[in-house]
């Protein structure tokens, strides 16, 4: 299946997702950069944006110019992995056919290293170095765009289909 409207939808979803991912990653590095330049208020705002999704404990964050990034090493791995997966997406799936949702097994396998490492850390079995946290996060994040794009494209197509059906139902029949 490779019709033009579908292909346009997939491309649009891909571009919007890529732009959002780039902005998100940029903001992670923006926070310490602003803090380093003395813009405390702006840096505080950027750190606050990421506070709901990350503990931001400085000892577990990579640093830029002596200031911690806006998210921890594991979260950075997830977002960097997402960006890498997104970059690979056109070569793996292409942008002309409807994205297919990966299997539950793919999800479980990709999150397993992160789950094992994270659970062991919480239980106090070991304290993994920040590099390992980054790598386990990266492994999971790299799979996520394949889920996200499938959902985003399907959402657009479903809404378009429902709108078309609604228009057809509203339009007067032949006289």
């Amino acid at each position, binding site marked *: 299946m490779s019709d033009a409207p579908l292909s346009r939808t997939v491309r649009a979803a891909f571009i919007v997702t890529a732009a959002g991912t780039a902005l998100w990653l940029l903001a992670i590095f923006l926070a310490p950069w602003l803090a380093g330049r003395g813009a405390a208020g702006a840096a505080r705002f950027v750190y606050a944006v990421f506070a709901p999704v990350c503990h931001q404990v400085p000892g577990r964050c990579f640093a830029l110019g002596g200031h911690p990034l806006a998210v921890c090493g594991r979260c950075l791995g997830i977002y960097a992995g997402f960006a890498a997966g997104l970059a690979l997406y056109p070569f*793996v799936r292409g942008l002309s056919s409807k994205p297919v949702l990966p299997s539950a097994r793919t999800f479980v396998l990709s999150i397993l290293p*992160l789950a094992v490492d994270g659970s062991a850390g919480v239980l106090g079995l070991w304290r993994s170095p920040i590099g390992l946290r980054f790598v386990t996060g990266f492994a999971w994040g790299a799979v996520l765009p394949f889920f996200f794009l499938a959902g985003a494209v399907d*959402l657009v197509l479903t809404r378009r289909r429902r709108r078309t059906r609604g228009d057809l139902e509203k339009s007067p029949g032949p006289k």
Partner: protein
Amino acid sequence: MNQPKPEYLRPALIAGAVAGLLSGLPFIGAGNCICCLWIVGGAAIAVKLLAGQTPGLLTSGDGAIVGALTGIVAAVVDTLVKIPLQRYNMELARRILDTLDIESGMPAGLDGLFNGATGALTPGWMLLGLFISAAVYAVMGALGGIIGVSLFGRKAAPQPPAGPAAPPAPPQGPTDAA
């Protein structure tokens, strides 16, 4: 596809309320620091509830919608739960950071927060926090909902009604290829 539009609101309200409550509680709320655990998990549960009440297959688009709604509900509940607990949460976080002796490298936002300079308890900050949480949780929830479809969306396709009908759209089942 003549399948009726699924009722997203009820599963989103139930799962969002639970996810928001867990996110707002001290200690337990820290689960969100692990890839937004409560939000992603709550959205996946919302899909499970939606699958239980919807005939036919759920699409990943359905998962995205119910997941995003779950995230927004969770953000509202999270904010409401945190209002009475905010002073306690800040004191708790302060003690943890003191114990870990990491205050010197604290992010600018937290530093100001603990010094009482940001006015974190004002309605303005609360609304800003709600807006940010709702936006972030909606995206994370959408992702959780899509993952939920992959985990829980698979079930037997309904038998087509007898008589002439348009061919059904191909089901969006998960595949093994990532």
